[in-house]
């Protein structure tokens, strides 16, 4: 029993063996500290991997609802019903913090510059990407080149910097990225070529924005200084594009002109000769998107091309569809004959079969609100379940670079026939169409396009309109259209009524010309017969401009759309941000 007397002292002694300071010193066990995060190239790679999350995915890319693609419901942007949010609304800066933190700290590991340079370039590429998105959305924004501290009120409460400064900084970042990124060819990593492509995209955007908004509310920065330098920016855009055209390994993917364009978007892995950067998906990893279900089910808004845009597709011989007699009342089967093959690569036209199938399918008006049913990216039916698609979605491709070059040259008035042949010409050749003739285009600007883009004028009006036609057709459903409308000051295209295909009225329609009735439009009771056809009741299932007297399909006729020229070219900043930072001013005419 005597022994027990010792237990307690031992217990107490044991307890005090943990010296207080050691016992309470507990460091994270499963996280790296910033100090130990930049010591190896592997760590730099891991860190820079985090930047890729900034790139768009899935519906960011294909769900391009503007004036070219519409669904049963309109977005606030399409409708003109955006409001000033209380907080958020896109004013997100976390990604920038992550990038700036890297740029401030990467050298702490003491790695040599040869090792760090490509990663620094990568960070600068993404900072440029970040700021480009911010400028496009908000115009002026504050520029930060460091991760902010919570107590740094000077920086936190900084007013907006002029977009002039931002764009100059973006270009400087891109130049640095171009200089240090590897000149390799990889569709899932940022390379020197990606940076050049972004530079041509940014400079074209900004150059045309400044040019077309020179005399409106958006032609000056938030401090009232006029936005100048459009010409220089366009020249930079052209130069970046030219560098890619001359020295990169990229070229257009060419195959049978009837199918080459379509093939580019249904290839299971990116076609590396043309795709500069794409987001890829995997069934095994359950990293997927929803484009099949979006386009083939009646459940996701039934997207379709808008009629006015479909009209802009040329005839296969290069002539204009809108010059055809009676084009406005041409029915579906007729209007899609002998058109630019890219139309058949974008929507269901007669003879369309699903990938991997030989069954010809007419457009399904149960799955497209306009009759022009999208097929870009749509893979075989085994991926038709909700979120079952894994086709890669392009973010940068060579075709855009060519279009950027042509547009930049045309907007600066320096375009030549050679330039056109090396750009638009190649795109048209791929589609089996004749090249664009500079002189002819300028001599006879397309009145149809001129009506859609009234701000285009001058000696190059004709070719600029043609380049815009080409850009719309080539890049539809790739998330370019909103920015294009904004920089071209073409917001009114959103305010126009949206239409679908033309139908003369109730009746039976053979949409694909195979002799079988595909569609029956009726009023009153459903007519008998045509068991395989689709029956749509006029006025409830589908609405035509003139009701039973026919006309184009009209979508949401009862919703009045507007686009405010003095306001809607920029997004509003959340009210909370304005309160938190009194130096921040709202964009024009938002309240």
């Amino acid at each position: 029993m005597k022994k027990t007397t010792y237990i307690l002292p031992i217990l107490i002694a044991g307890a005090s063996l943990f010296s207080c300071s050691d016992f309470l010193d507990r460091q994270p066990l499963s996280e790296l500290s910033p100090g130990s995060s930049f010591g190896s190239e592997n760590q730099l790679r891991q860190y820079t991997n985090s930047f890729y999350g900034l790139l768009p995915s899935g519906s960011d890319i294909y769900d391009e609802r503007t004036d070219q693609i519409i669904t049963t419901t309109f977005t606030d942007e399409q409708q003109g019903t955006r409001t000033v949010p209380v907080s958020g609304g896109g004013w997100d800066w976390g990604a920038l913090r992550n990038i700036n933190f890297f740029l401030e700290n990467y050298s702490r590991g003491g790695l040599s510059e040869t090792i760090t340079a490509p990663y620094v370039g990568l960070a600068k590429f993404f900072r440029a990407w970040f700021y480009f998105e911010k400028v496009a959305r908000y115009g002026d924004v504050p520029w930060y080149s460091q991760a902010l501290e919570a107590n740094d009120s000077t920086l936190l409460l900084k007013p907006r910097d002029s977009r002039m400064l931002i764009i100059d900084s973006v270009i400087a970042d891109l130049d640095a990225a171009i200089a240090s990124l590897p000149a390799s060819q990889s569709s899932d990593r940022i390379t020197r070529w990606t940076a050049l492509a972004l530079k041509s995209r940014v400079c074209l955007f900004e150059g045309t924005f400044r040019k077309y908004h020179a005399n409106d509310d958006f032609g000056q920065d938030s401090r009232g200084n006029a936005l100048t330098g459009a010409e220089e920016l366009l020249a930079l855009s052209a130069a970046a594009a030219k560098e890619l055209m001359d020295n990169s390994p990229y070229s257009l993917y060419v195959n049978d002109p009837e199918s080459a364009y379509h093939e580019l978007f249904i290839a299971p892995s990116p076609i590396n000769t043309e795709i500069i950067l794409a987001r890829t998906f995997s069934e095994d990893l359950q990293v997927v998107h929803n484009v099949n279900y979006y386009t083939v089910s009646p459940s996701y808004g039934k997207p379709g091309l808008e009629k006015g845009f479909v009209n802009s597709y040329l005839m296969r011989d290069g002539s204009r569809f809108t010059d055809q007699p009676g084009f406005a009342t041409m029915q579906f089967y007729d209007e899609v004959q002998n058109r630019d093959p890219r139309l058949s690569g974008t929507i269901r036209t007669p003879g369309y079969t699903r990938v991997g199938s030989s069954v010809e399918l007419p457009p399904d008006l149960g799955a497209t609100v306009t009759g022009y049913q999208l097929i870009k990216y749509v893979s075989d039916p085994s991926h038709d379940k909700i979120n079952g698609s894994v086709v890669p979605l392009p973010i940068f491709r060579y075709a855009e670079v060519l279009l950027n070059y042509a547009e930049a040259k045309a907007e600066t008035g320096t375009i030549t026939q050679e330039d056109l042949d090396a750009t638009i010409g190649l795109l048209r050749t791929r589609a089996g169409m004749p090249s664009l003739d500079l002189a002819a285009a300028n001599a006879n600007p397309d009145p149809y396009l001129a009506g859609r883009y009234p701000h285009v004028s001058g000696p190059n009006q004709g070719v600029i309109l043609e380049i815009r036609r080409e850009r719309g057709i080539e890049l539809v459903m790739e998330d370019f259209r909103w920015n294009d409308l904004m920089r071209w000051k073409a917001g009114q295209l959103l305010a126009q009524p949206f239409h679908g295909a033309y139908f003369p009225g109730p009746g039976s329609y053979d949409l694909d010309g195979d002799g079988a009735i595909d569609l029956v439009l009726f009023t009153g009771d459903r007519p008998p017969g045509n068991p395989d056809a689709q029956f749509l009741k006029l006025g409830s299932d589908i609405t035509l401009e003139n009701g039973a007297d026919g006309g184009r399909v009209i979508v949401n006729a009862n919703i009045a759309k507007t686009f405010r020229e003095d306001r809607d070219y920029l997004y509003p900043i959340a009210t909370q941000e304005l309160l938190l930072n009194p130096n921040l001013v709202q964009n024009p005419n938002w309240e």
Partner: protein
Amino acid sequence: MRFLSLLSILLLFFCAGTRAQETVFNTQAASGSQQKQLAQVLADIESAYYVNFYYNETEIAGKYVSREFSIHAYKDVTRLLNRLLYNYQLGYEQVSDKYYYIFPVEDHPRAGRPAGNRALTTIDSDLANRVAPQPLFRTKARAIRQQRTIQGKVTDASDNFPLPGVNVMVKDGTAGVSTDLEGNYSISVPDDAEALTFSYVGYVSQEIGIGNQTTINVQLEPDVQSLNQVVVVGYGSQKRVNLTGAVSQINSEMLEDRPINSVGQALQGAIANLNVNFGDGRPGGNASINVRGFTSINSGNPLVLIDGVPGDINLLNPLDVASVTVLKDASSAAIYGARAAYGVVLITTKQGQKGELQVVYNNNFSMATPTTSHDFMTDGYETARLIDEAFQITTGNDYTGYTEEDYEELRKRQTDRSLPDVVIQNRNGRDQYVWYGNTDWWDYFFRNQMPSMNHSIQFSGGSEKIDFLVSGRFNQQLGMMQMNQDKNTAYNLRAKIEAKLTPWLTLGNNLQFAANTYNYPGSGSRGAVNTSFVYLGVHALPSYVPVNPDGTFTFRSQLNNYGIADGRNLELQYGKAKSQEKEFDFTNSLNLTLQPLPTVTVVGSYSFNLNPYSNFHRNTVTPWSVYPGEISYNGNDYYIESSSTDQYHVVNAYATFADNFGLHSLKVMGGYNQELKKYHNLNGRANNLLSEDLNALDLGTSDHQVGSNSVEWALLGFFGRINYSFADKYLLELNGRYDGTSHFPAGSRYGFFPSVSAGWRLSEEPFFEPLKNTISELKLRGSFGSLGNQSLSTNLRSANYPYIPVMNTGLSSWLMDGQRVQYLNVGNPVTPALTWERTTSVNAGLDLAFLNNQLTASFDIYERQTMDMLIPGKTLPGVFGAPSPRQNAADLETRGFELTLNWQQATSLGGKPFSYNAGIVLSDSKSYITRFDNPQKLLNDYYVGERIGQIWGYTVDGYFQSDEEAASYEAIVNQDYVNETRLRSPGDASRLQAGDLKFVDLNGDGVVNDGQNTLDDHGDLSVLGNSLPRYAYGINAGANWNGFDLSVFFQGVGKQDWYPGSETYFYWGVYGRPYYSFIPENFRSKIWSPENPDAYFPKLRGYSARDGRGALRVYNNKYMQSIAYIRLKNLTLGYTLPASLLDRWNIARIRIYFSGENLFTASPLETDYVDPEQVSANPNGGRGDNDARNYPFMKHYSFGLGITF
């Protein structure tokens, strides 16, 4: 308890400092302020020395003692008794360490023997004989009356232990005996005697009519509110009378005999200002507890200690609990320093008792049913029409895609149910199923009757040297999910043993094991069974059916853009998506108690807790069909498993010195505590499974992902307490703790937390004597002190290394070379100089007892300053790009009070003893922000002066009665800002018109808006209510008579407001998302129309309760709900079989009972589809679900049986 009684005995031995006392004894009957009844003096001795006397009251009556006589002036009880009793010709005999007989000297067998100067007698084997039942006293009248003998046994009603030394008296006082060590007595009473009274210190006295009985067995109820009660406090215990802080305690009977599944349920409403909330009503749902209202923006919870070790009340067997003590103010909690800022809950488990093996078995079978109404619209036609109408108004389109022909079909099926629910029709060019049902989806998915059962058994006993208690429990509750019914299963085991190795050394071990498993259908993370109420709540229209004629499941109608229940219906129907949570808890405490000196006790303990938690979620691809013969698929196929291990080490070592110095009594305690937590988690995910039933990562065929993480934290502290009292009248307590934590940087890691408290027992003062017959106890208390909070609520890294910046890791959804890439990125910013959140609190209290403690009252008022709250710093501009780092940057003030009232009485009814009791607890608190960095006073953040919980909103003046009225109002007041839904509506619907809400332009600027949304410019907002509970109360009452016991317990909240959340389909119906699955029955009658201008809801506009600035979404006075409530929490009727029936089977006690929980609720809340408790916020502002889309609360009807052998 044990410790204290030991201590008291030691005190008797070693008492330093005697001083000569001038004592005056007066054996003459006299009265006056200079005299005290001998009985009263003996009672004082009992409470001061923890001893019990038994004696015949008539023998003591009429004897007086001078007030000058001090019971504190003697070294020990024996000397005191020698001095005191000598003058009255009384002697005494010590029969055990606590019990003394007092008897007239000439009456006792050992009369004449000098009674004093004997050391404590150890009970020897013939003690039982010596104290065998024998008359202590007989009146002279006995010879001339006819006598008869009554015998019986007196036991403790709470644990059935025999009570020795109970005074058994004939009512007229003519005879009296005491019970023996086995609790038995035998008394001769006159034939005409009416009743016996049974009295015992610390128990409620009982009077029982004799009638024809010859055997009267009695169970005495412990006197819970007795001022002599010993209360558990930090690292020790304290007599209630000597408490100076705000401490409340309840004992086991609050937890027994109720069909409760967890301790939290029992504590709800039981203790003033101990606030218990349940986030939902799911089986095994956890309670969150709070002490004294809103604690901190950063949230702060009380420290919960189970037998001195931090623990989880949700894993505790309710029947193991002996007492629950809540330390509310700074002085009582200060001993726990840095974790006690928001109170301490001390749970003490039962201890084995000396005596024969005792076996207690209890069971309970219960049936649960939701407390709320679930009568929804199930008419396919009516519902589809209503939904289409609501959807059409706002969006311009219909929702269902039904044609007029479809509606005609639906209308036919309103009356003719023989028509098929599903037909095949060609739509959009294809044959498909078209549904014309009248489905009750609620009944399809959920059950209404859920059984549960509980079995528990306890073995206890002991000898002089060793006592033990072993208990076990099995609890199973079934849930309401119709398919793959959810089930919670809990097992508990406790084994407690204590051995007195030597007279000065006691070794104890306390082992606790709990296992809890919850299985539920569907996939999702912890608690995710609630997501079923979210998903199932949409798109399941009555006109849809669950199954097609070919047996396939339904999902999309293909007539619109939506899928039933967002696919959750498929998961449930297909039945392969399942989840499980499993938790084990193992705690072992080894305790050593040493008494090197009689005045000194040293306790050392080491406790180890192991808490493995695991869960899995399995999701599968689910088949569905809408085109006959064609199966489509939905969802993904994956399996997620996570398992974590918590290890917790606690070392406590402390020593107590206690002694009396004359009238001075001193107790000093000091000690050391250290705690270390180690947490490790391992988790994995596999896709594309080989099996839809087996749960293993190995069965995934692609993309195995694994991860792990670890956390450690540590605490240590030195603490001390000094208790001083003078003459039991003036009480003083000092506490202090010096605490260190690993959560803060080395420079700011330690804090000192002192407190002081004092009490004054006015009732012990001479001047109080005239009142003493009415007010038996009056004590004033006051305390002041400081406490810390280090906010350790989670295993998240950020909570445990808040000052150390770290990098995040993750798996990108960007693929490189076909694989997801691992990435590293910047962590959230931290503030390097974090330190304690500190509270200082002031408490004033009053304890009162009336009518010899029949009525007791306790009142406390307090103010708590929460300083340097660790909060996400002030809202920073978005360009900061990260959440604001936590800082010690805000202050808060909380004020409140609590009141406890108890009444108890034992009397007789119909010749049978009848006892009853009633009690009320009431508490309240209010909190204000006193420092917060929000100079603009943005209303969407905290600001200085803000009362926590306040709800800002608009004022509505009814509906526009006509379009003209709307137009003329619109001409002067623009209410577009709060009419987002209307403005986005197409055509005519975008006009303000009859039936729309008329918003009042309070500030007269012609525009209804929130101005700058700041305090200075809040537009037309005003404070409409407060979301935090006020006046939480509990009311209990109970009665015992003739073996029957009845208890009722009400609980409620006196004041609380709730604005129904934007997804509250039970309330908003089609005004929220028009396509909710569960729209209350007869909803159309609540919709405004020209014919129904007084309807509850305005003109129908779908989404107006959901759009950010929709007319119903913006908080307004018309739809603000009061969710005050009173609820019959429990009603129990029990019957204890007469002991005479049970003797032959050797059974000590059998009790059967019927009980109900949540039987009745009253509330001004407008809807009966929402339980007010379900949306009630806890005092920290947290709620299960503001939209009431969580597991419904249940009422329970149960039957139970308890047997003691």
